């Protein structure tokens, strides 16, 4: 019956079966000691310089500030003047009646004052009832 193998306690198997040429390790050590001359150390200086680090930090902060300053705010609200201007330029699918409906009294007066003859003519041609109501209102004041 075969003896079970006890690998960890087998001294014969633990012996090193490999060899090297005569004098190899002496030559190895001597050869390895030439490595510093054959491979000189190169010093990397950038980012170790204090001034470069400070400059890099300042440039990063300036960039962050610029991006934050240029970024549009999320809470921007269009004024009534903006809406009117956008509508006049055809950017909004609103009619003048829609605008008039949302204007308060103060804004309505301003809107009326700034309305050009061309706009008045447009109102007269498209919404004559509205124009009539307006003038009737004026007469009653």
């Amino acid at each position, binding site marked *: 019956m075969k003896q*079970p193998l006890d690998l960890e306690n087998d001294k014969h198997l633990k012996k090193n079966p*490999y060899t090297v040429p005569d004098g190899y390790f002496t030559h190895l050590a001597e050869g390895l000691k030439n490595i510093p001359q054959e*491979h000189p150390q190169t010093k990397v200086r950038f980012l170790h310089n204090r001034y470069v680090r400070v400059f890099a930090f300042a440039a990063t902060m300036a960039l962050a500030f610029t991006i934050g300053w240029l970024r549009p705010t999320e809470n921007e609200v269009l004024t009534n003047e903006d809406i009117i201007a956008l509508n006049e330029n055809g950017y909004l699918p609103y009619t003048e009646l829609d605008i008039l409906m949302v204007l308060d009294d103060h804004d309505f007066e301003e809107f009326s004052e700034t309305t050009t003859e061309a706009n008045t003519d447009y109102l007269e041609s498209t919404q004559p009832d509205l124009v009539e109501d307006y003038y009737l209102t004026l007469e009653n004041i």
Partner: protein
Amino acid sequence: MHAEILNLLQSNKTEAAFNLIVKSYSQKLYWHVRRLVLDHDDADDVVQNTFIKIWKGLPNFRGESNVYTWSYRIATNEALSFLRSKKENTHFDDVAYGISQNMEADAFFEGDEAQAKLQSAIASLPEKQRVVFNLRYFDEMSYAEMSLVVDTSEGALKASYHHAVKKIEAYLQKD
């Protein structure tokens, strides 16, 4: 030894520190590499590359790890890289196993049949397990030190070594 090397590094005597590492560890590292790559000439090449990497890494060595385990780690990585690159250029599924089959014909192998069979068994293990087995079995390295060399927990290393022993024993006992 570690303290002496650190003192030299802190005194900017890098070359002196390197020479001390060569004197203290070159043989150990050679044998560690040799047991992985098996061939003497290949081991010589890998050891040269290992010490070049050690020399280049010395200026950044902070002493947080032990020079001994740090050197072993570099040697292990170099040996495994060598085997992987050789694998791409040969038809062997595993380079070391292929070499181990012709061990007794190697001029720098003086073991008997049993020792040759052991080397074949070791070469048949997966790479990392082979490293673990060699470090524990031949170098008698502690699991704590080994965990720094192969970057694995001590528990995992113990399990890996235990399985390696079982596999090798089974391999050696089959006819």
